[in-house]
């Protein structure tokens, strides 16, 4: 390993170092503000390191990690998401009856580190390490408010189900290794492309690894944990689960599947198509039946992962761009939606009941406006980021003649709109006789929400500069 390798790993190293620094700082001087400041500084440093690493791409650092432009792009996206979550968490944790707040940020940093490793991994070993780093940090984060039984329940559910899915994943990796004698994605792809059809052992192995991935992405039928965990987890952590965790796994999936000839392999293609369509329809259908805001967002995120699979299946030149655009839009929107829930949350619980947002537009017009924009973006209404994402995914699908999937996506965006509109209706209804007192808006969270709203509108109205960046991700 030489200097160039270290520079390429800069963002990951910066994240790891910051985690240690925040932990040590908490050991010597417990101070919530200090922890937040150090975390923000560390995330910013990682961002700077990322810019420095950009010219070195693509670079294979050890057999485990491939630092290329998509890896750096997704790491950057994750860093930004972690930054927003940190900003949101400060006010949220101040509000909640939680004894020690500093370690929370260590866990946020290690989650992001795991996500970064996943985005850059080119090998099953780094894949598994990244995934576990991500998962273990998230178990602790979900259950962080220890006095709240709902959080503990969600944490245990997540732990048990994630453990099971990891076992599937490991078994799948084992089968692939038994067949090929390698854990390298590239060699797996070469083996799959070289021979006629991949043997049964490889197919079984790959399918089992997809169970693990499907669990993390909460694709139907591996989605059962999502609503409970989203509801139980503190709102900023739920945002982290919805964005960083899913985004990282999707970035990995893009690389992993991008190497496999999915479109030529009927069995894999059918499997992905079924997963995508089931996720869209069942996710949206369950969301229709849902009243609780966080559970509703959980189900809607299941559907959104189904939409993303369409882009992935489309393959070709469009797929990486479509996934990148859609994920960015999804990040902005989901963080914003959970952010609003976080800043509305009173002491001791999250503001996820319908009554909490009833008539919000007449009590807190700006906050309601932000929430409305986020929901419209989730529904893919033009001039929001969500529309540009939907446009790209549909374009990718149409480009590859995936008519069934494109039609399913079209129908589902109409279904999806229905429950987003129902939430918007709640926001604008006449307020209840005695509106519940909402906590004052924390300054950091306000800044985060403002930035997210600007990003949402900027991506929606004038996406050209952002698309320039995306173009650099596409294979030349």
């Amino acid at each position, binding site marked *: 390993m030489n200097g160039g390798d270290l520079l390429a790993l800069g963002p990951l190293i910066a994240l790891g170092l910051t985690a240690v620094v925040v932990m040590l700082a908490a050991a010597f001087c417990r101070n919530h503000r200090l922890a937040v400041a150090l975390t923000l500084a560390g995330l910013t440093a990682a961002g700077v390191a990322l810019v420095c690493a950009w010219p070195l791409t693509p670079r294979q650092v050890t057999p485990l990690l491939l630092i290329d432009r998509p890896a750096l792009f997704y790491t950057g996206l994750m860093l930004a998401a972690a930054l927003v979550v940190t900003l949101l968490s400060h006010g949220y944790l101040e509000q909640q009856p939680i004894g020690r707040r500093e370690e929370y940020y260590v866990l946020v940093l290690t989650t992001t580190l795991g996500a970064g490793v996943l985005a850059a991994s080119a090998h099953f070993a780094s894949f598994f390490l990244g995934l576990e780093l991500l998962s273990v940090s998230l178990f602790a984060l979900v259950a962080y408010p220890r006095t709240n039984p709902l959080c503990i329940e969600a944490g245990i559910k997540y732990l048990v189900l994630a453990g099971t899915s990891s076992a599937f994943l490991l078994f799948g990796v084992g089968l692939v290794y038994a067949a090929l004698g390698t854990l390298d994605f590239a060699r797996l792809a070469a083996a799959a492309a070289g021979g006629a059809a991949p043997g049964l052992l490889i197919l079984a192995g790959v399918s089992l690894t997809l169970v693990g991935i499907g669990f993390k992405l909460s694709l139907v039928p591996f989605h059962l944990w999502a609503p409970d965990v989203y509801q139980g987890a503190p709102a900023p952590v739920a945002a982290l689960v919805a964005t960083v965790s899913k985004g990282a796994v999707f970035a990995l999936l893009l690389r992993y599947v991008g190497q496999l000839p999915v479109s030529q392999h009927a069995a894999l293609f059918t499997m992905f198509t079924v997963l995508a369509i089931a996720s869209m329809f069942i996710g949206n259908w369950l969301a229709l039946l849902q009243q609780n805001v966080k559970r509703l967002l959980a189900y809607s995120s299941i559907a959104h992962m189904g939409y993303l699979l369409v882009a992935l299946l489309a393959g070709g030149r469009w797929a990486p761009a479509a996934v990148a655009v859609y994920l960015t839009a999804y990040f902005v929107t989901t963080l914003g939606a959970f952010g609003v829930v976080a800043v509305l949350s009173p002491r001791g619980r999250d503001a996820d009941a319908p009554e909490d947002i009833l008539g919000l537009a007449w009590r807190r017009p700006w906050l309601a406006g932000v929430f409305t924009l986020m929901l419209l973006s989730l529904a893919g209404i033009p001039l929001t980021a969500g*529309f540009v994402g939907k446009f790209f995914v549909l374009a990718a699908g149409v480009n590859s003649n995936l008519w069934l999937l494109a039609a399913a996506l*079209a129908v589902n965006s109409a279904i999806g709109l*229905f429950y987003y*509109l129902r939430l918007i209706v709640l926001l604008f209804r006449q307020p209840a006789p005695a509106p519940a007192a909402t906590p004052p808006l924390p300054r950091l969270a306000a800044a985060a929400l403002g930035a997210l709203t600007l990003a949402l509108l900027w991506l929606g109205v004038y*996406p050209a500069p952002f698309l320039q960046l995306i173009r650099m991700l596409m294979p030349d």
Partner: protein
Amino acid sequence: MTILGVPILSLITFFPLLGMLLILCLPAARIGAIKWTANIVTAIEFLLTLALLGGFQATASGMQFMEQRNWFLNIQYLMGIDGISLLLILLTSLLTFIATLSSWSAIKDRLKEYYAFLLLLEVGMVGVFVSLDLVLFYVFWEVMLVPMYFLIGIWGGERKLYAAIKFFLYTLFGSVLMLVDILVLYHHYGHTNLLTMISSGSRLAGTVQLWVFAAFFVGFAIKVPMFPFHTWLPDAHVEAPTAGSVLLAGVLLKMGTYGFVRFSLPLFPEASYAFMPVIMVLALIAIVYGALVSLMQKDMKKLIAYSSVSHMGFVVLGIFAMTPLALKGAILQMVNHGISTGALFLIVGIVYERRHTRLIAEYGGLSARMPVYAAVFLIMTLSSIGLPGLNGFIGEFMILMGTFPVSWLWTAIASTGIILGAAYMLWLYQRVMFGKLDNPANQSLADLNLRELCTFLPLIVMAVWIGLYPKPFLTILDKPVENIVRLVHPEYYNIPLQKPPTAVAPSHGAAAGHEVK
């Protein structure tokens, strides 16, 4: 043409947005300032659209006032207008001004948000008519839904939420289909510039064209609304506040038929021909069914809403007859319908504001108390049923004349719609205005005040003008209509003008152009 350095089409599209931002900056308590700002902004907007007439060349063939910039990918910020868009833009800005003025005393709570949404709606409406890039068009088309949804959902009647969600879902379902279509076209042409698509001469291949046409058709037909996609309309109209109804009937419905004219016919000429019989039958059902249902209504707004279904059926009939005369008549009829139905909704709004009911049975003998109102109502009723000398006659007559050479049977069936139209409108007028003034609640009704009269005057002037001297309106339609007919029905111009009527075999349906490849 630019004003203060801003290209005129961008200016007229986004000027209301400035007004909206201005209103959002005003404190909610300053009701007077908010009302005045909204009214002044929409008035200036109307004057700006009138300024278009100054630079518009009535006899030029192509698009005018073009603006072109790259947006993202190969999608362009492309604007331009021809005679068809010009008429609809003028209609939009006039009706928005009138709708704003009519809200002065009708809307009592959350004024700031109300006027902000109204202005945002105008941005979307004007944007739809000036866009010549499919994605840009789609963006305005969808964005417009949001303010309309809020106008119905917040300031509507008792079942406002049901109506608002139904409105949004129906239109969104149609427009998502359209988005898939636009992407198919994007895939085929590599861009979404409508003009280049048409001029390139390349068309989608057979079956694909049929599918894409069908999906576009559903998207537009929901908006028109055509039978059987019309069920959202009565709900939306009944629950919407008066200004919402005026704009919904006057402008939003026209977007569907505008879509047929601007996109369906030129982009999918073969498919348009193939689907012509189906569409004609649907249009005829809409005409007769809408009129019959109108006869049965007890609620005035519902009656006018169903009459819109019938009238818009005429417009669709004229468009898909694909003769220049019928097409010109259809476009003129879009404007006529905007004027007369917009006015009728205002008329209902006037008594609703005073009595808070729209049931016909609650009224009777109003002409004794409200003579000016009675006169205005009468003029608009006659305009709506197509009395010669008023605007409705010209449009309907041209549509029927233009459809006759295509099929006498269709023309005959459509004519019954006019008779039924006279029946339900005159019966409505009779029940509301004549008879004994026996309901005590109606004894003290006030006649129109000056502001209310002002909302009607421009519409009456337009109705009479188009009725007596439609030539200026038809002149600017000549070229665009000819361009469309040449694309979709090129044989039309090869037929000798003095052909004896028997030679055009009427029962063969689509006449000469039937053999288009």
